[in-house]
């Protein structure tokens, strides 16, 4: 049965790759990237074997702890949880929970990230190859550590997504997950700043970490190498207890998820009236704008792209502001502008096959494009202006205000233009409506990132004029040049927006049916 379920996982992966060759390319590239990382890790660990044992211990403990933490929490942050074999879909089959648990754990290990993590963990034994007995212990600890990684990710997935029953509760929870994520970024950065400034503290930190569930198991070989078997036994105990406890929690969460599969049971309170539809004009463009804005407020997938907005000032502050020089905050406006400008990049993909209503009603591509741009502009333009003004004010560089506004608004509107162009042509692999917004399809995120990267490059080139003028103005303390930059930004980006919407709209008019076929394939 276990082997059967694992075969199912690979069968599903293979089939999805056959359906979309680009996804296969993406998975291939991801694998190569992982192998490169693995190679670097192995080389580094080999070098470490020549260093003092104390250093080897510090590095393996901290590295291992980061690995476990990353596995447990990172899926929520970026790449998503691989739900190729979704427990909820197996609920109808009479599979004993033990078997299911084992199968899910093994299929987690057997993914590309799982294999690379396991190999990297096993490579930690290379640090201790001088003493074969310790190296053997290190191999055992590495296996436990790698299993903890996989179980940790599965546990959090089961806890955050599957416990809930009812759409509203589920959505509330996914948004709640965002709050610790907001704090996580600055926290990591604060810690890494500490690392840079207090290198001598690292051994002490690793001592502390070695008592946490994340680092304990990785400390065992180092303890033995530095001649502390008692400590090694205690650390091993904490490490094994961690694995056992997280398995138990996962089992409990999975059990609940299977007993109460996430079905929509909520009958929410009724809403009166037309909402945004009564605010916008009664034209197709106005209707699309009202619909989009309603989705920005109601759909957790859009909330996911909005978390970046408060995240950016926090990260920039922690990166640059901690040293006392606040001028780095000037980056906040442009970065947020780029993120918001590109936020409608996957808009049609988020619509999924509901987009067929746009085709059925023969709404013009241009109205479709404008509506989406207007909806995001309603909050993106004020947000960009406010953040730019605030960052200029806080960093006390008032002479740069106009130029910064030029750069930010130029990037925002040019970004909207590019998004309008691209989202009218391509359907990306994104979570479907109602799905976990953090859910990833194998390689899907990578394809999206690849095309995003190309678009960012295009954006940088298109917004170059206003950026160059503004920067020259800053460098020569020439304030009127700031006004030139703002004027150039407004004119140029508006022209781009009109072109982007028209060309994107025409493509939508001409290729709407083909786009729908693409969307149906993503379903």
């Amino acid at each position, binding site marked *: 049965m276990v082997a059967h379920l694992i075969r199912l996982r690979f069968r599903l992966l293979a089939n999805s790759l056959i359906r979309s060759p680009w996804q296969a390319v993406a998975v291939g590239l991801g694998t190569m990237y992982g192998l490169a990382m693995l190679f670097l890790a192995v080389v580094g660990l080999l070098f470490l074997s020549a260093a003092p044992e104390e250093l080897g211990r510090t590095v393996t403990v901290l590295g291992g702890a980061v690995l476990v933490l990353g596995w447990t929490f990172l899926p929520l942050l970026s790449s998503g949880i691989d739900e190729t074999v979704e427990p909820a879909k197996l609920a109808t089959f009479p599979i004993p929970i033990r078997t299911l648990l084992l199968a899910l754990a093994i299929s987690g290990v057997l993914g590309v990230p799982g294999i690379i993590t396991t190999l990297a963990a096993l490579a930690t034994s290379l640090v201790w190859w001088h003493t074969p007995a310790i190296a053997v212990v290190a191999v055992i600890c590495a296996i436990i550590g790698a299993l903890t990684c996989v179980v940790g990710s599965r546990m959090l997935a089961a806890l955050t997504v599957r416990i809930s029953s009812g759409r509203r509760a589920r959505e509330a929870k996914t948004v709640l997950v965002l709050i610790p994520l907001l704090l996580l970024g600055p926290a990591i950065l604060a810690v890494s700043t500490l690392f840079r400034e207090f290198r001598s503290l690292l051994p002490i930190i690793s001592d502390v970490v070695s008592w946490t569930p994340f680092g304990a198991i990785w400390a065992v070989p180092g303890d033995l190498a530095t001649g502390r078997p008692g400590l090694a036994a205690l650390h091993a105990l904490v490490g094994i207890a961690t694995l056992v406890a997280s398995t138990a929690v996962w089992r409990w969460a999975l059990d609940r998820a299977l007993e109460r599969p996430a079905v929509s049971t909520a009958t929410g309170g009724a809403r009166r009236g037309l909402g945004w539809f009564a605010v916008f004009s009664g034209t197709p463009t106005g209707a699309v704008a*009202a619909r989009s804005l309603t989705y920005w407020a109601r759909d957790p997938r859009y909330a996911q792209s909005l978390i970046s907005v408060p995240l950016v000032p926090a990260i920039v502050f922690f990166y640059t502001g901690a040293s006392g020089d606040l001028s780095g905050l000037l980056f906040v406006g442009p970065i947020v502008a780029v993120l918001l400008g590109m936020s409608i990049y996957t808009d049609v993909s988020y619509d999924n096959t509901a987009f067929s209503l746009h085709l059925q009603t023969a709404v013009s591509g241009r109205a479709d494009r404008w509506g989406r741009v207007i909806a995001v502009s309603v909050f993106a333009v004020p947000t960009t202006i406010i953040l730019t003004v605030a960052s200029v004010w806080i960093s006390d560089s008032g002479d740069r205000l106009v130029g910064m506004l030029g750069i930010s608004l130029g990037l925002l509107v040019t970004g909207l233009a590019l998004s309008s162009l691209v989202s009218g042509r391509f359907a990306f692999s994104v979570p479907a409506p109602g799905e976990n917004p953090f859910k990833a399809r194998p390689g899907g995120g990578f394809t999206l990132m690849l095309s995003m990267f190309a678009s960012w490059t295009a954006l940088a080139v298109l917004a170059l004029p206003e950026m160059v003028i503004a920067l020259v103005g800053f460098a020569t303390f020439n304030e009127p040049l700031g006004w030139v930059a703002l004027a150039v930004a407004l004119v140029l980006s508006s022209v781009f927006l009109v072109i982007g919407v028209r060309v994107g709209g025409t493509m939508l008019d001409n290729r709407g049916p083909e786009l729908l076929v693409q969307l149906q394939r993503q379903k």
Partner: protein
Amino acid sequence: MPENPPLAPALEITGLTKRFGEKLAVDSVNLTVPRGSFFGLVGPNGAGKTTTLSMATGLLRPDAGSVSVHGLDVWSNLVDAKRRIGVLSDGVRLFDRLTGLQLVTYAGLLSGMERTVVAERAADLLDLFDLDSVSGTLVVDYSAGMTKKIALACALIHAPQLLVLDEPFESVDPVSGANIRDILHGFVESGGTVIVSSHAMDLVQRMCDHVAVIADGRVLASGTTDEVRGSSTLEDRFVELVGGRRHGKGPEWLRIS
């Protein structure tokens, strides 16, 4: 109608073909749906019903063949043709984070209608489909039958002349189903044309005056319901045409005693 000049049929499909990779999903289908008819399209799963209807309504580009609605070529006059067609697609999502009222309003506004007209018709449609009490509930929280009804309301709001409904009665309760049938009959009596695809042979036989049987992407029979079924029931005739009926009671191990 011998004294009237011959009107173009509501829907005329000639040589319609669609290939998905290796599979020929629709194989040069010819179909004529007369004006004012209640037309049933029946066929086994995967017969190409949905593909044919998608191509007929301008949602899926055909590889070959032509489709015209009231004499107007659909694929060269997409906007005008779509204004005359109301579509209920099977297996596509709705913008289900909108309330029922918002969704119907959205469909109307997208069609380019005046806001006041949309508001009036949306209220009428919600009343007609007994969705008044849930007009403020998000469509994602609707039951399957309610979702079908709200999608039907979206297909009707721009007052089309031709209604193309893919599986309109699936998961609709009997009372709502009867109400929908009454509405559709009223629509046909007033001169509109309705095409429904369905698995329910009894229903099609009672409801439709014309019927076409489609299997493996080909039309096996087409005409008035009485012509197609002859002396037997539509279901028997369908099984006879399509084949694949098994005789026997299943394997030995599946019998309890």
